[in-house]
């Protein structure tokens, strides 16, 4: 079973719908732990994904990388920039290809997570999006490696992301705007985690 440009485009549209639906929740979370703009960012990312999904590109690498550049232009707050970085890094792993295997999807996902880490210079446990992304990347790779079909592997990925989110919820944010809120972030869901999980729910349809 291989993933095509059209599969990715359809996933973008599903992610967009999920992000749009989560706008108000994300605003509320970011008002508590940041500056309250994450709902706006999610809305802009959704619009940009919808607008981009119909674009043509020579190969999957360019298709993903150019999506990243479109996202950066549309939404350049922290999460917008990290989302853009993730797509650009994912694109680098499938340069010149017109389809990708499940293993390659898992690799691309890991590269995306690593890209977010490189760009944002946060560490695991700082209570950021990384704490959802890395467990999710691990779970996806493991399930795919064990021969699970993408649908089932996606469920594992999502579960791991939610667990990652929940694991850091009791902690204090250490970086970004939420880092300045300090103590008061203990017990609050990290807004960035909430956003990537919403996007993953859209992609996996779960």
């Amino acid at each position: 079973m291989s993933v095509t440009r059209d599969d990715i485009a359809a996933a973008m549209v599903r992610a967009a719908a999920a992000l749009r639906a989560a706008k108000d929740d994300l605003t509320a979370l970011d008002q508590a732990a940041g500056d309250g703009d994450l709902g706006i960012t999610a809305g802009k990312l959704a619009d940009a994904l919808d607008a981009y999904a119909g674009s043509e590109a020579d190969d999957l690498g360019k298709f993903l990388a150019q999506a990243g550049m479109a996202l950066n232009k549309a939404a350049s707050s922290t999460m917008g920039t990290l989302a853009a970085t993730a797509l650009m890094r994912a694109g680098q792993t499938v340069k010149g290809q017109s389809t990708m295997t499940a293993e390659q999807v898992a690799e691309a996902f890991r590269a995306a997570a690593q890209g977010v880490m490189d760009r944002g210079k946060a560490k695991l446990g700082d209570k950021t999006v990384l704490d959802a992304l890395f467990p999710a990347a691990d779970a996806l790779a493991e399930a795919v490696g064990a021969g699970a079909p993408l649908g089932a592997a996606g469920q594992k990925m999502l579960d791991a992301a939610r667990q990652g989110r929940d694991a850091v919820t009791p902690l204090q944010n250490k970086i970004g705007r939420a880092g300045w809120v300090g103590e008061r972030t203990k017990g609050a869901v990290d807004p960035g985690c909430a956003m990537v999980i919403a996007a993953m729910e859209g992609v996996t349809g779960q």
Partner: protein
Amino acid sequence: MKRFLNAPEAYVPEMLDGLVKAHPEALKFGEDVFSIVRADAPVEGKVALATGGGSGHLPVFLGYVGKGMLDGCAVGDVFNSPSAEQMADVTRRISGGKGVVYIYGNYGGDVMNFDMASEMVDMEDIPVKTVLVKDDVASAPKDEADRRRGVAGMVFAFKVAGAKADEGGSIDDVAAAAEKALAHTGTMGVALSACIIPQVGKPGFSIGEGEMEIGMGIHGEPGMKREALAKADEVAARLAETILADLAPGAGAEFAVMVNGLGATPPEDLYVLYRAVHDLLAQKGYGVHRAYVGEYATSMEMAGASLTLMMLDDELKRLLDAPAQTPFFQQS
């Protein structure tokens, strides 16, 4: 929301359109309205200075583009970083052959995008140096100064670095001048009310009648303490003493002082605060070389103020005193 708006999505582009229409002799657009440079950019043979950041803080950032200060500015949506692409566009349009210095506030989104932008223009052989503004002493303790936010103190960095560039300094000289200014600068704010991001339509927090938040950031980042609103003299002393403890000036030090209004606070009140700061510095045997009282870095309709102190030596005095002409800052 007690504001003059059209469609909230159009707020920033309309504001920028108005700004360039009001100041055509000073400013022009780059690739789009989010990239704004000096009308006479690029200035050949001068190190160029760029900044950028979210909207909602005028005169920061855009208002300081002009002779003697900045060459260009990438503008984001309210409280949002501009994109790397916009920053790269500004960089290309202002580059006058001697390199470009980025000076901007230490916020995650801005840092990531400026880093991406400098990677982009590096491939086009435009050398870039970055100076991060981290002047808010309330945002992290001194031993974690790298976590501090950039607030009104950036205006002193723009001024000093801009004058250094006008004097013919190299990219290293200009970056060093900005770093030097910032190493001697501390800011602390106090907020009395919240502000509203037009696209959100309601405040993200609230400060009760009779309360203040000491140390709050210019996007409403939480401060050190929520407490009962104190008298102006006490507030001024709290801000000044905290900054002085951080800067640890020597005997007889001379300062540039900025009392900055966050938006809704009347200029009169800022002068009441300034008076207290001035008298406190005088009591300690310190001097005021120059005072700036007014709105320099705002948060839309937020009520509140910040105090910035910059300890001066002869070089900083000279660079601070140099002339500048921008839409929001004139000195001759």
